[in-house]
């Protein structure tokens, strides 16, 4: 049952991601990408990470993709310019396929090593996934969390400067 569900979701994710790079029209690409993000959110729920799934939908589908769609609409780009060289297509596809083969090769001959941690289904059901993430984020990972805020500040300043100035 679970495997079947996984296969369906994975198949949709792959199909949609192929559509992202195949569609001539950027809006259709964006829509396919949103579907891919949804499939990933579903997989996160299957992996007992409901908080990450919610964040995935809120941040990616709800914010980043809205921004991208907004920009596509603002610039009103309907199709890609026809310039597309055959050898770039061939080289790109070859690189991608090589990458895939490489990862598949190494994955198929390795196994999961390393110490198993204390977080299992029972712990998540007892404490709650959000609470666990929160505890971890504000104790163990406090410094990276603070540094992220500086990154966001820099991004805000950058975006404002770029939008204001005549470049």
């Amino acid at each position: 049952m679970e495997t079947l569900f996984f296969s369906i979701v994975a198949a949709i994710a792959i199909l949609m991601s192929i559509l992202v790079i195949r569609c001539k029209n950027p809006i259709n690409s964006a829509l396919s990408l949103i579907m891919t993000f949804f499939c990933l959110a579903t997989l996160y729920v299957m992996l007992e990470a409901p908080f990450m799934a919610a964040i995935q939908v809120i941040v990616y589908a709800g914010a980043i993709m809205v921004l991208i769609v907004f920009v596509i609409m603002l610039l009103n780009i309907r199709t890609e310019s026809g310039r597309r060289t055959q050898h770039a297509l061939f080289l790109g596809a070859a690189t991608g396929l090589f990458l895939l083969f490489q990862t598949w090769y190494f994955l198929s001959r390795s196994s999961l090593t390393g110490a198993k941690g204390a977080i299992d289904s029972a712990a998540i059901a007892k404490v709650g996934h959000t609470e666990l993430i929160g505890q971890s984020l504000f104790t163990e990972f406090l410094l990276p969390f603070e540094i992220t805020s500086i990154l966001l500040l820099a991004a805000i300043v950058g975006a404002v400067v770029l939008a204001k100035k005549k470049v």
Partner: protein
Amino acid sequence: MVSLHSYLILSAILFSIGTIGVLTRRNAIVIFMCIEMMLNAVNLTFIALSKYLGNLDGQIFVFFVMTVAAAEAAVGLALMIAFFKNRESIDVEDLNLMKW
């Protein structure tokens, strides 16, 4: 129970498709979307491993990846708009101001 392997393979496939997109497309916004897709593929790996290792560190990392992606979206799209104002195009072939 779905094996860890299936998740990792799926993530590898998505990552490769993203790579192909980045290398073959001309439209800067589509390239941008493909990069987001690659980041997401990596996120899937992190969360799958985090589940199978019984450890939350991977998910915290995903949290940070999403923050970086959001910052990247804001700055990247602002750059694209600035570029479009100058050149009336967002084709990466036209991104040649720094070339000589």
